[in-house]
């Protein structure tokens, strides 16, 4: 009897020892868009890039991770849509120009470009990719949602009356004459229209493509 019990115990021990013990999750698939995965590393990289570009310090909590993930999902959807208009995708020369401007910029704590990258633990390739995505995205929006859009004089007047005037009053600032601010209002209205159309398109894309949010934490939770 004893040998049998010992044998069973040894077998159980052997089986247990062959299953890797669960450790701390250091990376995982956070979301799936179409046939592409967005990983936890992608979320972290994006957070670093945002902090780098905004000159902000990295926070020490997971707050906002889901917002970044949702933003990355939208970006992937736009990428899938860009496949139909590949001429909008940014080229190396466009990205280089932006990088050159960035290199001349002063960063947090007076650090130079390389020092700032090191400060945020950011690889230069990640930043390059972010800039490429950003340029492509701007072109996409301009081409898809701004081309051909028009803002009528009546809309400008309505905005001047209902939004601009009250806002200036709230801020205690004098309201300029409508002709002086018409161009700015027109640009704001165009931007608002484009944003609205982009949201509609993203809704369509969400229906067209498989999207699964698996989460940022252990066990699939956010």
């Amino acid at each position: 009897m004893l040998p049998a019990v010992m044998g069973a115990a040894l077998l159980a021990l052997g089986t247990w020892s062959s299953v890797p013990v669960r450790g701390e999750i250091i990376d995982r698939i956070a979301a799936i868009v179409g046939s592409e995965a967005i990983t936890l590393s992608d979320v972290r990289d994006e957070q670093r890039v945002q902090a780098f570009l905004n000159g902000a310090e990295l926070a020490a909590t997971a707050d906002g991770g889901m917002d970044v993930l949702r933003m990355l999902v939208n970006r992937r959807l736009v990428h899938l849509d860009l496949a139909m208009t590949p001429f909008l995708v940014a080229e190396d020369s466009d990205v280089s120009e932006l990088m050159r401007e960035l290199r001349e910029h002063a960063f947090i704590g007076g650090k130079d470009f390389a020092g700032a990258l090191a400060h945020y633990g950011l690889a230069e390739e990640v930043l390059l990719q972010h800039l490429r995505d950003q340029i492509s995205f701007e072109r996409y929006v301009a081409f898809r949602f701004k081309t051909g859009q028009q803002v009528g004089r009546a809309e400008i007047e309505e905005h001047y009356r209902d939004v601009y005037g009250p806002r200036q009053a709230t801020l205690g600032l004098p309201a300029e004459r409508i002709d002086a601010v018409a161009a700015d209002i027109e640009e704001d209205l165009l931007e608002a229209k484009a944003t609205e159309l982009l949201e509609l398109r993203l809704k369509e894309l969400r229906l067209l493509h498989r999207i699964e949010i698996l989460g940022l934490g252990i066990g699939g939770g956010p």
Partner: protein
Amino acid sequence: MLALGGLAAVPCAAATYFGTLVSEVLFEPPLSAQWRQGHRALVDVSAGDSLDASSLGRSIQALFRTGRYSDIQVDATSTGEGVRLVFRTTPAWFVGNVRVEGVGRPPSAGQLVNATKLRLGEPFSEQALGEAENSVLSLLSEYGFREAGIMPILEHDVPNQQVHVTLAVRTGPRARIGALFVSGNRPILGEAEIRPIAGWKRGAPFRRDRLQRGITRLRQHFEAMGHWAATIRAQAAEYRPAANEVTLVARIEPGPRTFVRLEGARISQRRLHNRLSAIFRGSIDADLLEAGKASLLEHFQSRGYVEAGVSYEVATAASGDVTVLYRVDRGASRKLREVRVQGNRSFDLGTIRERMRLGAGGGGGRRFTSSTLEADLAAIRSLYRSNGFRDARVSGSVVLRPGGGGFDVGIDIDEGSPTLVASLETSGMAEFPADERRFQFAAAAGQPFSEASIATDRQRILWEFFDAGYQDVRFGWRAEPSGSPRRVALLYDVSHGRPLRTGRVALSGASRTRPDVLARNIELREGEPLSQAAMFATQRNLYDLGSFSKVDVALQNPDGAETDRTVLIQVEEARRWAFGFGGGAEIGQIGRNTAELTNPAGEAGFSPRMTVEVTRLNMLGKAHTLSFNTRLSLLQQRGLFTYQAPRWFDSDRWQLAITGLYDTFRNVNTFAGRRVEGALQLSQNLSRTTTVLYRYAYRRTSVDEQTLHIEPLLVPLVSQPVRVGSLSSTYISDRRDNPTDTAAGMYSTLNIALASKLVGSQPSFARVIAQNSTYHQLRPRLVFARSLQLGVAVPWGRYVTGGDQSPGFARRPDPRVPLAERYFGGGANSHRGFAYNQAGPRDAATGFPLGGGAQLLNSVELRFPLGGVDLSGVVFHDAGNVFSRPSRISLRSAQFVRPTATGTEYDFDYLVHAMGFGVRYRTPIGPVRLDLAYTPNPPRFLGFDGTRQQLLVGAGTFREQRSSSFQFHFSLGQTF
């Protein structure tokens, strides 16, 4: 500035692991043997490396892109030697077999499975399953199942990562048509009128197809009332569960009535409606009026009014009704006399004319319309352009002959100079493991530059690449000036991804078929290039086994980035038992054996027929078939067992059939008999058109003594049972365009059979039958067909089965060939101048047919249209007969009759002619035909008026008789 997202920051405790040494990399669950090597190589982190976040991210992405995982997490544990990484994966699932059960037709099972949009091999998800359920419910709703519910049953096939989905449906009762509401601006008909017209009877089962049929019927009704532009919509608006009724709402906008009048010419209302109703359906505007004008012009031009002109006026009444008046100036009727083609130097007239409809054979070639001319010009242009004459100009004109004597069509061709290929280069094909012989390009240096040749080359290249496992292949071409005038340098540019290999071949759905049978028919081999040709061939092979009602072959995980692809083969086994019942009748002078001797030439009769067939498919799981077929009629009672093995020797060229036959027959009125036969036959398909049969048959034939209508002295001998063993081979070459109703081609057969003691036969004889038929299409639906059939039976040895051997004027069949083995001829599918099996030598005492040792039959037919698409006629001439012996075959048309000491001797070895006409009506199972034949030289013979008993006792009277000169035949299929 628009931006996707905002700022947030999540550094993590995990950062503490990055930069430390990796001690171990594990997978949980461990990688299966199939993926171990490939997937491990995708991980960019190894023991001994410093842990790097970007490498880890890349590894997860690469693993995910294989499509094999639905989730991947990496966890880390510090050990004394560094950090241990565990890739925890969740396998992805893919769609396997999909079935929808519990629904009575309609909708069909196929419609329901299609509605799920779950495709074999594609990723499976709960979301896809939910959408599938919704789609099925929606389809069921359209067919009246408004209370249907679905219970999905999922069966996980873990080794193949497949999910077999069964949607178990509880349909509930089919809803009925309830109330009908009619709306519209100007309703003409109310509910009471609409219901019977549309077939939407209250209480009738509601179905989508019934709704659509009703709309079509209503539209036709409104068109007949002149409302050509009526719009009709109908839908199921509301479901009332308590009454299980669907309320229909029909919106009918009749629109104005349209009256079309014609001035200057007449055309039947039906034809006018046919021509214009489709054009004016929905609305009437200037473009549609022009289209109507063009349609009428085409009508008159096609009837020879080549100068016809049409104009129109439109008048709208206060009621909104529209009257369209077409004024036609027909001009004189002229016939198309000649189509002249000139200017062609590089192509002969025949090559050009075979692309043209004008001037072609058949009635259509004489029907001129502007659109036909334009189509012909386009076809000629295309011929030139595809052969390098890029500047070719082709124009046409109508030239009236003076004095109303018809008109000619002239086609002028200005060929220009051809552009030639100076050189041909390829790029992107270096990696392809091709021997150059595969690519004998249609385009080549010195050849005309032709886009048709490039299209041919493109197809060839793509096919070869696909066959070698390259899936994402793109072909482009460029033609650049070569430096010489009218010479271009041609470049083929091929781009492709990595070749794919066949990984696992996963077969499912077969429970009864033996694995070795399946394996033999799968042409995909693990590790070999993933060939599309092999996938198609596998599907075809499995279908050809006849044991499966459905065979799907698909790649699992089609969007995954794997090189070794799992190929899924999903089969659905057909029902094992099949039953068939049929009925029919033979009508005509069918020559059935009766007790009377008075009518040896046969008489008009009717023989009902019943057939029963039972088939057992996939015997023993070997994809073989066993069938039992019975045929019961007044002329024949037959039972036939057949065991068939397709793909014998694992080859689609060989088939084996073993048959057992029990047959009692009385289709020759001379005798009734019984045949028991066993046979083994091998079929070899040499090519698509050529087949050779090898057959061994052993049969015992006995003749019922009581039914023999021959000279009484011979009865004991002839009625002896005889055993015949024969080896035979048949060569069949079938190049007909349509075997049931041939218009062109050739059909030839040669059958050689040898009956000998060596193969167990009592009598020894050789029999040869050869047939050659050709079909020539003179014009569309005008076919000249001819057929020659020759058969001889040559006996040897001493075995005698009956019949005399008198060397007299009228020879009788050689008695060494048994009665039932002789040639009998005459009837609907043979010589139409005879009733069924009435040709050839006859018994000297009774006048009944004795069969012969040879037969010759030559038939010619002219098949022509009679009116309508389905009705056709035929005039024919048959010449031939069954002859007593091969040496007695004669082309003589007169029958010799000689008085002898004992009476009169009749010779039957002469050629009987028959001519006649017939009609054919085309049906889905072949033409139904009626033939009437007249024979100027039917045989005379001595017959006996009386019974067999009277013949035996010498009572009764002998009387010279003659086969009828007129015969009629009613049958199915063409004669040959």
